């Protein structure tokens, strides 16, 4: 995928994010994450049923990378089993951190495969994962 196409998808997910807005439903688990530079502030809410992410939404005040990554993440994780989700999260984090990873499991999240070139953006791209990991209990 060329850079322009990646940028267009990121921009689209920033300007028209999917699954944005918290459900105000007690069957969802909500976790807020902020990054250390005190800028991005994202809350992810997920409904887990029978070891599956039945629904996942997010809301918050964050930069283009963090907001779009939250949007793409919710799309990729919705409907996945916890095991599948853990695999996606793990490979996504490996990609951002420049470690070997399996791109086949990442779907649209592959658009962030060059974020590592801008170190200041890495934490933005990783922030939504911090929340979802806490929700599914994969933050050990």
């Amino acid at each position, binding site marked *: 995928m060329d850079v322009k196409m990646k940028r267009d998808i990121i921009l689209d997910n920033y300007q028209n994010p999917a699954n944005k807005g918290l459900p105000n439903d007690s069957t969802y688990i909500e976790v807020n994450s902020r990054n250390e530079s005190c800028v*991005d502030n994202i809350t992810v809410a997920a409904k887990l049923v029978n070891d599956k992410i039945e629904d996942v939404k997010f809301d918050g005040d964050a930069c283009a*990378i963090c907001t779009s990554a939250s949007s793409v993440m919710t799309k990729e994780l919705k409907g996945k089993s916890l095991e599948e989700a853990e695999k996606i999260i793990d490979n996504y984090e490996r990609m951002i951190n420049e470690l070997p990873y399996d791109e086949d499991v990442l779907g649209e999240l592959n658009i962030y495969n060059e974020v590592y070139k801008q170190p200041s953006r890495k934490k933005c791209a990783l922030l939504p994962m911090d929340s979802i990991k806490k929700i599914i209990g994969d933050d050990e």
Partner: protein
Amino acid sequence: MLNREDFEIFKTGLIYFDNAATTQKPKQVVNEIVDYYTKYTANAHRGDYDISLKVDEKYEGVRNKVKEFINASKTSEIIFTKGSTESFNMIVFGFMAHYLKKDDEVILTKSEHASNILPWINLSEKVGFKIIYLDLKEDNSFSIENLKQKINKNTKVVSIAHITNSIGDVRPIEEIGNICKENNILFVLDATQSIGHIKVDVLKYNIDFLGFSAHKMLGPTGVGVLYGKEELLNKLVPLEYGGGMNIMFSSDGKYELKELPFRLESGTRNIAGVIGLGAAVDYLNKIGIDKIHEYEISLKKYLLDKIKKVPNIKIYNENLDSGLLLFNVKNYFSQDVAIFLNNYKICIRAGNHCAKMLQEVICSTNTCRVSLYFYNTKEEIDILIEALMNQDKILDTLV
């Protein structure tokens, strides 16, 4: 532009507009630190040999320089700390913990830095005194009227910044100092953002306690100052015990502490840092603090005039008299703007600037902050303006 040639870093074309976070260091400061490490490394207050005596002379010389710089009465009123945060923790947990009682009131504002809020919140949980957050004026600056209204017989302390790092308003501290004096209230001043920018005079402004960090006034990181009136510092209970601060101790549990300032400086201090701070004070004195302030204000005016002509810019602190400007570019998140400006080698800060309560007051949680110092130039501002004129490219460098 004043004395720009003393700063090696600017030869790289870097445009540094984040001076409220930390300032650059002139070669005079760096050289002093290198001299200590290469020509006379020794501990202070210990040895009987030449280089140790030289360390004492230098270290205590800086205490005197700082005393003069802030117009304190005595050198014993100057305590070297790790920085503002430690200074404030010493004031709150070393002094106020033994001074404040349950129904007392401490006045702060919501635009204070975390280091002048969190220690107070923590102590009030233990002691039960009340923290009063003074309402700010419409432009988020300090209101003398609101201060007068809030003062009552229970008010024991007013603790505020001279200049806030979040908004950049310069507080009328002479008037506040007088009000505190008339009402028998302790006046604690956070001079972190003002030191090195405008004159700080503890006697004239009736300041009881004051804290600042060296690194925001050309000095090194990891060193700062706590000032307190002698009679107050004498009652400040040390938070740290160890070497350098005691006269004797014995196995029957007896111990005796040194007099001020040493009883509040335990362990080997940041000697190189203190010596660097001394060079920073010399440097600032040589240019003259009034000249620095005057130049900064003229630069801020130039920036304001220019940035107001850029479309889609919202300014949050137009009429406040310091070298700090808060703005946002419409439809863009502050951090995206900061990362875009980095492509032009421009360093600005995005975020809420460690004053997290302020978002309860101003409608935006995050802003771009430009903070100027005497080495910045009109040409640098022109480059910033040119970059902001290209705002449709802000998201071009996402991948």
